[in-house]
């Protein structure tokens, strides 16, 4: 319960932000919430199930393009968003069949290739997508409604992620991560669960993609299929700590801060710096920040311990 109270409190503060005069903060939190949602939804496949889906931003891009195209056709926002997430979910279901025949690093690389495939498609299908120049959507200032919508999607993604982790489905995903062969022998429907996990994780990503493009009123292949947008949610999840909900949040805040204060000062080598972060993470901290010796006790004292090892503590409570 501590877990929920902390987040409800946080969300109330965030919701009040626009009325307190922090207009710059609103833009910042908007982008942070988009990244956080991407990181958290990535984590259902990458963290819970242990399949590194480097192509998670494909869903973001699909959502963005579908929404943009439909908005330009005169559809209203909600119809466009609905279509966006249905399309992304359908695409996820379709692609899961061949992709999940690969495991481990092969899967990761293939999903990475998926981004470039879709990028090439958007560049080539000029009539539909406007080619490499991208497309603009009907103009207008949507910052405030977009802000609340993204906060809403982020909150919903958290609830989703939390309930997946505590469900039978989540248990199945964990077992796939640990040892897929044994999981299968013990009756876990691995193929079904893998596909389902990909579909579930695609939904929040495509929704924030749609809201993002509605707010920005412009989308191009580079802005939604670029390397940075592909990798930053994954780096956030990995840096914070995968498989626990607090991880992507910590990672998202950390990376967004770095982007805010470092990127504006150093115009070059952004990708090289991401690269260095990845290498250092891989070498020294594969568990992420929340699992390091110094941070873990602190997080637990804050009452977020439930989020670090909720499953285990919940059981202990019920037992006593």
């Amino acid at each position, binding site marked *: 319960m501590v877990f929920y109270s902390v987040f409800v409190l946080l969300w109330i503060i965030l919701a009040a932000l626009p009325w307190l005069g922090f207009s710059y903060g609103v833009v910042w939190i908007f982008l942070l919430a988009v990244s956080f949602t991407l990181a958290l939804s990535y984590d259902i496949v990458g963290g819970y199930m242990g399949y590194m889906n480097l192509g998670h931003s494909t869903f973001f891009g699909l959502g963005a393009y579908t929404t943009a195209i439909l908005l330009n056709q005169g559809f209203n926002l909600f119809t466009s968003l609905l279509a966006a997430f249905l399309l992304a979910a359908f695409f996820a279901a379709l692609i899961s069949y061949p992709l999940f025949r690969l495991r481990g690093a*092969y899967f990761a690389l293939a999903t990475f290739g998926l981004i470039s495939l879709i990028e090439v498609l958007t560049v080539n299908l000029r009539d539909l997508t406007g080619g490499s120049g991208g497309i603009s959507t009907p103009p207008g200032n949507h910052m405030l409604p977009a802000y609340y919508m993204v906060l809403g999607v982020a909150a919903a993604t958290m609830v989703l992620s939390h309930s997946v982790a505590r469900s039978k489905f989540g248990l199945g995903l964990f077992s796939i991560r640990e040892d897929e062969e044994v999981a299968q022998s013990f009756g876990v429907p691995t193929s079904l669960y893998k596909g389902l996990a990909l579909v579930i994780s695609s939904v929040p990503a495509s929704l924030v993609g749609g809201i993002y493009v509605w707010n920005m009123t412009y989308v191009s292949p580079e802005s939604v299929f670029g390397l940075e947008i592909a990798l930053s949610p994954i780096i956030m999840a990995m840096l914070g700590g995968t498989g626990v909900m607090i991880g992507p949040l910590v990672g998202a805040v950390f990376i967004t801060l770095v982007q805010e204060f470092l990127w504006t000062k150093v115009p070059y080598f952004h990708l090289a710096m991401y690269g260095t972060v990845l290498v250092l993470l891989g070498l020294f901290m594969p568990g992420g920040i929340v699992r390091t010796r110094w941070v873990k006790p602190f997080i637990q004292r804050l009452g977020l311990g439930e989020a670090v090892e909720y499953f285990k503590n919940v059981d202990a409570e019920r037992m006593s």
Partner: protein
Amino acid sequence: MSADFIQLLVGGILLGGIYGLAAFGLSITFGVLNVLNLAHGDFLMLGSLLSYGLFVWLGINPFVAAILVIPAFMVLGVGFYLLLLKPIADKPPHQLLVASILVTLGASLFIEDITAYFWERPVTGISYTLPPMEVAGVVISSTRLLVLLFIFALACAMQLYLKKTFVGKSIRAIVQGREGAKVVGIPISRVSALAFSIGMALAASAGAFYVTLFTVTPVMGIPLTIKYLCVVVLGGLGSIVGSVFGGLILGVAETLTAYYCGAEWAPTIAFVLLILILIVRPEGLFGAKK
């Protein structure tokens, strides 16, 4: 068959040979280290740039360069292995997977970004040509034929090395079973370093040929690595002969797509082939059925 088609075929086979050579290197590293090196494509790019530099500044013939880059990249490969891969080599499988993806992907981003900074414009191939030949009414560039010959010779030399020498046998032993190899006293770490550097050198050498025919850009590394994935899966995971054939298939498919559908569609064919083969025959064309 028209002369055009034969020209296309030759071009495709050539490109395929280059892919096959590089993918062969990737197969070796994956087999020995259990690490899929996502930076592998960047070594082809670096090899291309180096041999381009050798040609432009020192006037060194690309075929000589293809040999010269081998020792250079073997040293680089050992360094890469010691610095980035050896520290994570003994982790349990799931952690090794995550750590290796992070490390090699990070290295790839780093290499590409730094190279792009210093190499702003794409390198548009080496203008090195030999007089063309005419075979049965078809004009064939003798540079291309020579490249093909070179690749074939390198692949054969590699195969011999793996079959005949002690180190080569050790590499094959580790591929077949790491634990078993350890038990019979093969120095895993040293052989791994060597295997990694061989894989890297093959990629770089392939790069030297690549630059004689195609345009090189600093950001082509990751798309190339994805092509190797397609090649390796096409040929069947772990099958060395398979990866050469996989390379040929991809090379020809890409060239034909570029000709008939337009060059902008060529980058999609690798992924489409990958998806097709995963649906139809996931064990690859040359892999053993389970």
